[in-house]
């Protein structure tokens, strides 16, 4: 008896859609790879990317430029209220690192217009450099979903500490002690 192929095709189509849904949920879920590794006491390699410097679009900068130095990588934006609260702590850290020659704070702006970011820098009197992650690709590599987020990176380019949320003095002191700064 000849049977219609329609039910089989319908079942395959539904299975394909369900598979697509599962794939979407898996790929779009938060990337916790770095967090899990750091929680286990490991130091995973810090993702790096060359990006334009805020306020100097003709220039670019990346983590690789700070090889041998400690980097406090901070994702921020002018529209982010908690970023305003942590800015003085980050500036104090920048002054300390620069004075000791140990490293730098490196800001990464996320989905923020340059003029707004520059205004934020002026208002908070920030002296550390920032790069612009316009497409959010670097943020994606760090599993960044909400701002602010901070990653303390040792002189060998490895992530030593992570703070998903605003940093405070205690976190920065402990994280910098870990990386010998």
């Amino acid at each position: 008896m000849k049977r219609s192929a329609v039910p089989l095709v319908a079942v395959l189509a539904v299975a394909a859609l369900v598979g697509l849904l599962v794939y979407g949920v898996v790929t779009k879920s938060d990337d916790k790879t770095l967090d899990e590794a750091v929680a286990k006491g490991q130091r995973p390699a810090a993702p790096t990317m060359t990006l334009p410097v805020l306020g100097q679009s003709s220039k670019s900068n990346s983590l690789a430029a700070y090889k041998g130095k400690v980097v406090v990588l901070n994702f921020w934006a002018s529209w982010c209220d908690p970023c305003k609260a942590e800015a003085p702590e980050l500036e104090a850290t920048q002054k300390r690192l620069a004075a000791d020659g140990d490293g730098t704070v490196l800001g990464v702006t996320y989905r923020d217009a340059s003029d707004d970011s520059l205004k934020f820098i002026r208002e908070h009197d920030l002296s550390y450099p920032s790069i612009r992650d316009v497409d959010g690709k670097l943020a994606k590599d760090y599993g960044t979903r909400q701002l602010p987020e901070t990653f303390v990176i040792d002189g060998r380019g490895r992530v030593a500490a992570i703070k998903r949320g605003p940093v405070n003095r205690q976190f920065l002191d402990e994280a910098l002690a870990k990386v010998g700064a």
Partner: protein
Amino acid sequence: MIRRALLVLGLACALLAPAGSLAHAAPVQRTTLADVEDEVMCVLCGTALNISESSQADRERAFIKQQIAQGKTKDQVKQALVAEYGDAVLGTPSGGGFNAAAWLVPAAIVLALLAALAFIVPRWRRSARSSTDAPAPAATPALSAADTRRLEEDIARYER
């Protein structure tokens, strides 16, 4: 010589005249906030900018107005938005991976519907053709004499 120069001048005028009239017929439209607003997203809210009311949406609107004030076209304003906020501001899924599903799934559904039509329509036509080719049902059997008489009586009674 003069005649030839006049002829060339006349031809040049004839060629340039339509261009001039076209320029008048299609004046360059100034870009407006509304033109751009309904085609871009508020990058933080994840909603279309024309329905977003957050402070970020206001910043994006201010940015668009600034670009319009510089005399930029709609496309140029959108390019400037992408340069500041990334592809997310366009609200169209970009890149590969799962985002490609946003384009591929509708295309696959359309193809599946077309394939289903291509499969079903010939069957309908075949079944319709076979129903017309089928022998006509047998003619109604003739009434008996008694039935004919009773029918005529009923009709006569009805017409009275």
